[in-house]
Every structure is written in C-alpha cells, then in structure tokens.
C-alpha cells in the first residue's frame, strides 16, 4: 500500500463530495423545474399540430378523443395547436401529430376544426423487443445545445464521482499502489 496523507485525503474527499452534490442538485433542479423538458420539446420537426399526447391515450375507434384546434401559447386540455416545421413548441406540448399522419387517417383524422384521435398506441419492434409507440416524442426536435450540456454534465459527474471514490478509499486507508507491469 502506498503512503497515505490523511489530511490531503480528507480534503480531496470533501472537495469532490461538494462538487458531486452540487452537480446532482443542479441536474435534479434542471429536471424538476422543467428546463430540461423545455430543451427536449424544443421545436417542431415537421408541420402539424402540437398536442399533449397523454390526454389522448384512452382513445379507441369507438370512443375517439376529440382535440379542438386553437391558436394559443400553451396546450391546456383537449386542444391541438397548429405548428410549422421549426416553430418553438407551445408549453405542455409533448408531441406533434403530423399532417402526413392526418392525411393517412390511420391513427387520427382531421374534421373541420377538430382532430379525432382513434389509435394512440401502436406496437413497434426494435432490436427484437416490442414497445408501445404513441404520439409522444413525435415530430419534435431537441435543442442541440442540450446535447452538449448532457455530455458536459455526464463527464463532470464521471470525473467528480471517480475522484470522490478515490478520496474515500484514501481516507479508509486503501490507497492502492500502481501496478508494475511486466515485472
């Protein structure tokens, strides 16, 4: 075992613990405050109607959910807000029912100033697994900067947690020697 400086180990542990807690707090705050979600549901990637897909999940062909087309800044209740490709998504919107989807009429139909959702769920296959696919996450584009933010956060987290663990084992007296390869 290598020589251990307890004071330095305690400082290292304390410092990286503070950094890790701050990072965790910041990420959790960003998530719960809705900032990350706003970055995720950023703009429309195609022409269509922004909706709260959760509200139409109970729809069936016999009992379709009817969404009223309205022009407003926020999706409140059973409304669908027209958006063009590249438009900033209105608040609470979590998916876009595309014009192409409406034209095909397989899952939703445009009738005057309303959209009738008849099939909100469909079963999709991926890598040999089945999962339920909804209008949620559809037709959206994420803020590209959120990608850089995610990578920066995960790298900072990895580094701080790695050094935190190293500090912890140092304090516990488990400081490990470098392996002499080839000997």
């Amino acid at each position, binding site marked *: 075992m290598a020589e251990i400086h307890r004071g330095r180990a305690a400082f290292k542990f304390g410092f990286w613990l503070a950094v890790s807690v701050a990072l965790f707090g910041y990420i959790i705050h960003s998530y719960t405050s809705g900032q990350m979600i706003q970055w995720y549901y950023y703009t429309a990637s195609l022409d269509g109607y922004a909706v709260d897909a959760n509200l139409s999940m109970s729809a069936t062909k016999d009992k379709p959910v009817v969404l009223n087309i309205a022009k407003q800044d926020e999706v409140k209740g059973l409304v669908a807000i027209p958006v063009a490709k590249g438009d900033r998504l209105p608040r609470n919107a979590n998916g876009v029912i595309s014009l192409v989807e409406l034209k095909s009429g397989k899952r939703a139909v445009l009738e005057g100033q309303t959209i009738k959702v008849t099939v909100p769920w469909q079963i*999709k296959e*991926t890598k040999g697994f*089945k*999962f339920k696919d909804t209008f949620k996450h559809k037709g959206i584009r994420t803020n590209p900067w959120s990608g850089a933010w995610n990578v920066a956060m995960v790298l900072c*987290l990895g580094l701080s947690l*790695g050094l935190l663990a190293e500090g912890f084992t140092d304090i516990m007296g488990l400081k490990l020697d470098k392996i002499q390869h080839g000997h």
Partner: protein
Amino acid sequence: MFDFAIAGVEAPVFLLALVGLTVGIVGGFIGVGGGYMVTPALIVFGFPGYMASGIDMTHICGKGLVSSVRHRQLGNIDWTLALSMIAGTMLGVELGVRLLVYFKHLGISGVVLLMTSVGLMFVLFLYTQIETRRAHKQMEQMEKEGKEVGREVQTSNLPMLFQRIPLAPIIRCRTARVIVSMWVIVLVGMITGVLAGFLGVGGGFVRVPALVYVVGASTHVAVGTDLVEIVISGAYGALRHSIEGNVDMMAVLFMIVGAMFGAQIGSIATSYVRGPAIRYILSYSLILATLGAALRLVYVLTGQNVQWLSLAAVMLTLGEMLFLCLFISSLVYFAVRRRGGKWVPDWVGPLVI
C-alpha cells in the same frame, strides 16, 4: 417508481441503479461499456428502444470515466497507446455508421448486424478461451515448479508478428511496455471502431482482445486503456443521441450512481487477479452475449413469431450480468483468502495474486 418525463415512462429507480452497479462491476473489470447488457435491460423496464440506446451510451461515457480514474491510479492506462488509437477509432466509428446506413438502405441491417455480432463474438470467444486455457496451464506448471509467476502470462505469438512490422513511426508505449508501429495501433483503433460503429456498441469486447493479441499490451493495460477509448467514443455517441432527443438525464443519473460503486469494485478487483483471469471473464461474457444474440437472430429469422426466443434472450442477458458479477466477486474472495494463507481451489490459485 420515478416518472421520467422526457422518456415518458415510469421506471423503478432501484433497478436502474442495480443495473448500473452490475454493469459497473463487469465493465470496470474487463474494460467494456456493457451496452449489449444495458439496452435490453432498459427495454424490459419499459424504455422505448431509441431511449434505451441513448441512455445507455450516455451512462457508458460517465461510467467509463469513473472507471478510468481508478485505473489511472492503478497505473493501467497507457496514454501513448490511448491517444494514438483515438483518431483511428473515430474514423472507424464513422465508417461503421455509414456501413450500417448502407445495409439499412438494402433492408437487411438487422440480420447482417446480428450475424456479424454472433460470428465475431464466437470467434473471439474461441480464441480467447483457447489461449487463456493454455496460459492457465502454463501458470499451474510454473507454480508446481516453484517458479515466480508474473501478473501477466500470455501464450499467443500474434503480438510478436505485429511488433515486427517496420513501418515508421515506431512508438514506445512505456506503461504497456510495447514498441510497435503507430500504424498498427491506428489500424486496431480503426477496425474496432468500424465494428463499434456498425454494431452500435462501445467496442470494448473487440478492442480489449485486439490490444492484447495484436498490440501485445498486458490485459490490465488493455482494460484501462480501452476505458479511455470508451469515454471518448461514448461522449461522441452521447452527443449524437442527445441531439436526436434519445437521452433522459435523470435515468442516466440514477445509473451512474450505481455504476460509481460498481466501477470501483470492478476496477479494484483487477489488482487482485492475473491477466488470464480477466481474459476468462471476458471470454465467458463473449459466449453469453453470443448466445443472447443468436437467440435474437433465430427470433428475427423465424419472422418474430416465436415469442419465447425474445424473452429467453432478455433473461440470458440479465442472468449473464449476475453470473459475471458473482464470478468476479468469487475471484476477489479467493484472492483475499490466498493472501491470508488459507485454502483456495487448485484451479483458482494461479489466477489470483
């Protein structure tokens, strides 16, 4: 249960942390990202396939860094080797992705991908298993004769063949104790990068054997150096997935918490074993992953009608994680016993320090 607003699912936080922990142990020990284990597990928890891939790749980047920090302390990272390989890896990943797009265009990407995975992993398993058994026997013989057994015993002649290539610049990797043409390292990075990009994985299960059997690095250095590559290729993958909107950071966060503990156990465990022990675990990981991929291949080839094949593939993958963790833990347990002068099974003796 936690409501993951971005992924749009409710999933058990404890299980996410547990997956992070187990993959952290395995990844820290054999130097792989563990993507082939995490993605199916996340899908079982209800995450859509694209989210599972994105979360997996982002978590691998963070977990790789946690493990790398520990392997740096253990002296298992050869920075010359890692930096020389990066350019080849990145180029290879891009080529691999383009190859995948080409097969997607032909409409046969799923079958080609699974067949390549099964074929490649099986060949790697066979070679690693045969070579490691030979090394194991050699170590047993040396112990019987009372000779000192080093941390690494390797019986393959391939590294000598590649180290003889006289193509300048010839570089010296001090930690790996290897002198080799830089082009060999770049080529290893590129070929493993192509496979990683094509198969959509971090590529550790190809890169670690390549570093051992082509470059001639010791298994410990191969593991540590590969983890640095995983951080870089993982960061690139995480960026691409994040821009596509395939990442829920809260899920990543919970998995990294588990991975932090797992990566410590896995990384520190390497200091208790000799190189062949790591290669054994790697080869068992390869054969179990091959079986999982083979089951999925049969499922796809039978028109996705035999449902139990898909379920069996998932169960096998989850069972594999548990089996490998138990195997690693038992090796450390026996190493501690041996250090204390207590009895350990004959076959374990030469594998641990």
